[in-house]
């Protein structure tokens, strides 16, 4: 099917006679050099803006070198070379590992099954048996693979191959089978391999749905330089669209639950309408890359936000998908039904096409993410869009649609009508996208309580902007060129090439400069900071598990913990494993951000996990302290709570039991209680809130804070998070730090952490001081255990020294565990499957040393303190504090 060279063009390739190369055309070597230099510039921009995944960037480098070699090969060798390059890219990506640059054995272990299974699927399609027999065989093979994808069969270590294989075969196999069946001739092996193992597909799972016939037919169907030039333009357009997406995502996008007023409502609606630009950008990059290897493919998206009707929106938003649905489902349905009447056939074929689209989106989600959730906003989105497109189709069938062939045919009246229709379509589509981006229909309906005059004003402004954009991008260009476009005839003269080169190079160079730290330092104005921040928020740091927006494509394109192995391979980083499972917490609106649910009983990290009626992972206690009880309130995070350690083996439980069995001398009638108030992720900032809101009622005698080196980071993390959660900031010290670091609610947490770093000691010190104040206010002795984790020392020794100094200076009595693990093996003390958590053995060690310190530390003076409690118990008036 592929035309190997111009001299052997097949029937059907007659419509685009090849332009003759003119004498003033750019020599090929010069054109290729220009393309190569621009590809290098694009690679620099990718790197500097931290765009896409590490795997994509490496495939791009491979493609850049491969492009030059490919071009200078004889035409008949280009396609086999492209196949080799695709398989090379598969090996390159599959060997990606967080631990080393490239792992050859791992690459083979993963790539070989993908190649073998893929080849088997292709073979089924070209078997010399009937269409339905082939389809049944493919169905059976798909069913077997689904068992592997669901984890019912197979080895977890090869989990990565299923989403990659699915992204290559789940749809293209349908088109391929259809085309092979209707073409009546078997395609060449190299065509088939090239089509399925397409170069960037091994590192991008959401891939444009390329048509097999068009893929084959388009191969070098016009001058090579013209194809490359167009490919470059699309890659640059893709880069710019991804940058626009980044700006919208970082500066405008909101989650529905974050909306508090009418302006934010319209911000939510508009931002979500434009977020699809990420898909468009990625598709432009992918197809642009394929053009560099001679596949003269059409556009994937065409200014879809300027569609003037719903049918036009459907035709513009994802052109390849629309072509697939029309070819494989719509036309066959219509042709089968047309004898029963055109209108009926049209209605059923349209509804059938949208139903299939919805089902195939669920099917796609399942293969790529490994799970799928039914959602009413999703159903309603496709249903409403189907009805709108159907009504529009019936109208067009009856009344026709204005099409244009020649230039300059827009009258003022028709241009105004076009802008109005475009604005109306945009408004409806934006509302539909906002529905799709809501968690539920009721949440979406509930949003409208915020609608006010500002919503209306901003909506009107947005629609006027769309009308202006319609005039600029749709009406005015029609006066200069063919309004209906078609394959752009890209000239290869010196002038045209230079213009095209400049059109690509200038925006890339500008982007590079704008994102350059030196430039940003020179143009260092506070109002520009959010823009710099938005640009600097690279794809490797962007929220993967808590993005600022929610929608079908956002969910599909974010590779998260559901695809951990794929994520680690593509990003070449270790994924931080948070607790997976039912979270025994609920949100609170103060610096704790969340608290443990009371009376929970579940299993976490293969360990029994229970909370008492007060929401502590501890045995039950009365709130009022019994006479003769010395009560210690223990503050800390998940380590202190004991993730992965049975409750009676957590150090707090061991120490409590030991104090009661072996109390200090002279305190044998005193009862000791250690109340474990620790909550996962709690920072010293949250511990202040904990003291104020929860601990005060328990009248502790000692407040025992467990603090780690991570508390530096956690205080700045929670300070930034408080801005997002609109929690009032109680101190000038904290406010000043935020102001000096130019942190706003929208600053990405990684950038915020980076800029708050110089302020961390002051912030942590402020927290320690407040904990001392609050403890004294409760009449309790403030004590802090400085507890580094076994694997942190001696790397963090200087930080430990600084932190212990801060603790002492703040007035906390320090129990310093810096040298706790000196004679231990860190590997014995950490649970590798839980990030930064100790084993029961480590808890026993902590308990042992803590007990000794409590018994002997003169500042804590537990013996005397216990004796005082014992004496007070004998005096009824001094039993407990209120």
């Amino acid at each position, binding site marked *: 099917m592929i035309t190997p060279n111009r001299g052997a063009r097949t*029937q*059907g390739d007659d*419509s*685009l006679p090849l332009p003759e190369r003119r004498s003033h055309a750019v020599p090929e070597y010069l054109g290729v050099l220009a393309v190569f230099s621009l590809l290098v510039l694009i690679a620099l921009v990718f790197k500097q803006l931290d765009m896409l995944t590490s795997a994509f960037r490496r495939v791009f480098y491979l493609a850049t070198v491969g492009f030059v070699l490919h071009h200078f090969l004889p035409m008949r060798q280009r396609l086999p070379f492209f196949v080799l390059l695709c398989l090379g890219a598969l090996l390159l990506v599959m060997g990606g590992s967080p631990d080393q640059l490239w792992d050859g054995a791992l690459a083979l272990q993963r790539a070989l099954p993908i190649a073998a299974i893929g080849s088997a699927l292709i073979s089924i399609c070209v078997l010399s048996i009937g269409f339905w027999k082939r389809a049944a065989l493919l169905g059976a093979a798909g069913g077997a693979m689904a068992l592997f994808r669901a984890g019912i069969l197979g080895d977890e270590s090869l989990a990565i191959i299923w989403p990659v294989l699915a992204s290559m075969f789940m749809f293209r196999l349908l088109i391929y089978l259809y085309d092979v069946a209707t073409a009546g001739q078997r395609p060449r092996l190299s065509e088939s391999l090239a089509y399925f193992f397409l170069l960037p597909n091994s590192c991008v799972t959401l891939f444009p749905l390329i048509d097999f016939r068009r893929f084959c*037919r388009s191969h070098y169907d016009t001058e090579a330089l013209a194809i490359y030039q167009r490919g470059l333009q699309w890659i640059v357009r893709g880069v710019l669209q991804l940058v626009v997406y980044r700006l919208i995502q970082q500066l405008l996008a909101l989650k529905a639950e974050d909306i508090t007023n009418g302006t934010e409502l319209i911000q939510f609606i508009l931002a979500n309408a434009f977020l699809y630009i990420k898909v468009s950008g990625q598709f432009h990059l992918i197809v642009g890359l394929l053009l560099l290897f001679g596949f003269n493919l059409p556009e994937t998206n065409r200014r879809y936000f300027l569609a003037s009707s719903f049918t036009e929106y459907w035709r513009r938003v994802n052109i390849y998908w629309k072509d697939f649905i029309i*070819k494989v489902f719509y*036309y*066959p349905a219509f042709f089968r039904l047309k004898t029963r009447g055109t209108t009926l056939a049209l209605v059923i074929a349209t509804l059938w096409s949208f139903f299939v689209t919805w089902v195939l989106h669920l099917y796609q989600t399942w293969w790529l993410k490994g799970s799928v959730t039914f959602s009413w906003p999703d159903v309603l989105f496709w249903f409403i869009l189907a009805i709108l497109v159907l009504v529009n189709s019936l109208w067009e069938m009856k009344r026709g649609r204005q099409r244009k062939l020649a230039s300059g*045919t827009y009258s003022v009246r028709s241009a105004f009508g076009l802008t109005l229709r475009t604005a109306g379509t945009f408004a409806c589509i934006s509302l539909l996208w906002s529905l799709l981006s809501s968690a539920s229909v009721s949440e979406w309906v509930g949003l409208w309580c915020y609608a006010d005059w500002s919503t209306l004003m901003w909506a009107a402004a947005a629609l006027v902007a769309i009308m202006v954009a319609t005039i600029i991008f749709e009406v005015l260009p029609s006066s200069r060129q063919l309004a209906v476009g078609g*394959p752009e005839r890209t000239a290869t003269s010196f002038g045209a090439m230079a213009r095209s080169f400049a059109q690509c190079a200038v925006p890339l160079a500008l982007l590079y400069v704008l994102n350059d730290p030196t430039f940003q330092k020179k143009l260092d104005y506070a109002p520009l900071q959010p823009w710099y921040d938005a640009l600097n928020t690279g794809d490797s740091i962007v929220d993967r598990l808590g993005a600022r927006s929610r929608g079908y494509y956002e969910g599909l394109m974010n590779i998260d913990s559901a695809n951990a192995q794929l994520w680690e391979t593509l990003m070449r980083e270790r994924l931080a494993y948070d607790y997976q499972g039912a979270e025994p917490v609920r949100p609170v609106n103060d610096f704790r951000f969340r608290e443990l649910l009371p009376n929970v009983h579940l299993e976490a990290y293969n360990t029994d996990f229970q909370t008492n009626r007060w929401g502590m992972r501890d045995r039950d206690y009365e709130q009022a302290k019994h006479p003769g009880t010395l009560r210690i309130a223990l503050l800390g995070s998940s380590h202190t709570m004991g993730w992965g350690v049975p409750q009676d083996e957590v150090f707090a439980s061991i120490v409590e039991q030991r104090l009661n069995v072996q109390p200090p001398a002279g305190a044998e009638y005193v009862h000791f209680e250690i109340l474990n108030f620790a909550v996962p992720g709690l920072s010293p900032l949250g511990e202040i809130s904990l003291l104020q809101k929860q601990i005060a009622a328990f009248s502790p005698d000692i407040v025992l804070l467990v603090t780690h080196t991570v508390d530096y980071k956690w205080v700045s993390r929670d300070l930034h998070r408080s801005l997002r959660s609109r929690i009032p900031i109680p101190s000038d010290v904290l406010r000043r730090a935020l102001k000096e670091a130019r942190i706003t609610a929208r600053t990405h947490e990684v950038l915020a952490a980076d800029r708050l770093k110089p302020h961390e000691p002051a912030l942590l010190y402020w927290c320690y001081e407040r904990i001392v104040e609050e403890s004294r206010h409760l009449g309790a002795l403030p004590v802090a255990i400085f507890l580094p984790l076994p694997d942190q020392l001696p790397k963090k020794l200087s930080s430990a020294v600084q932190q212990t100094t801060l603790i002492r200076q703040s007035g906390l009595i320090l129990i310093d565990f810096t040298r706790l693990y000196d004679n231990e093996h860190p590997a014995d003390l950490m649970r590798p499957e839980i990030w930064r958590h100790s084993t029961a053995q480590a808890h026993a060690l902590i308990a042992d040393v803590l007990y000794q310190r409590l018994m002997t530390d003169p500042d804590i003076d537990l013996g005397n303190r216990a004796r005082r409690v014992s004496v007070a118990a004998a005096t009824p008036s001094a039993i407990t504090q209120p």
Partner: protein
Amino acid sequence: MIDTLAVKQIIKNYILSEFLPGEDPAQLTDYTPLITAGILDSIATLKFVDFLEQHFSITINAHETDPEYLDTIERIAALVHSKG
């Protein structure tokens, strides 16, 4: 059998009158892309196929709506001839 030129002229006349009223006929050549340029969208293609079937008394299959067969007047004429 109708000769190729006549077939092309019939097809051209239909496209101009049905889908491109008021447009300059000279702009529509035998090689003007129809599907890939958006003149024959899905609805127009259905109408056009109906016209071809009625006018030339031929049957067109669903897979023959592909640009490979219908993207230019040249290709459409070839399709009509192949059915004839």
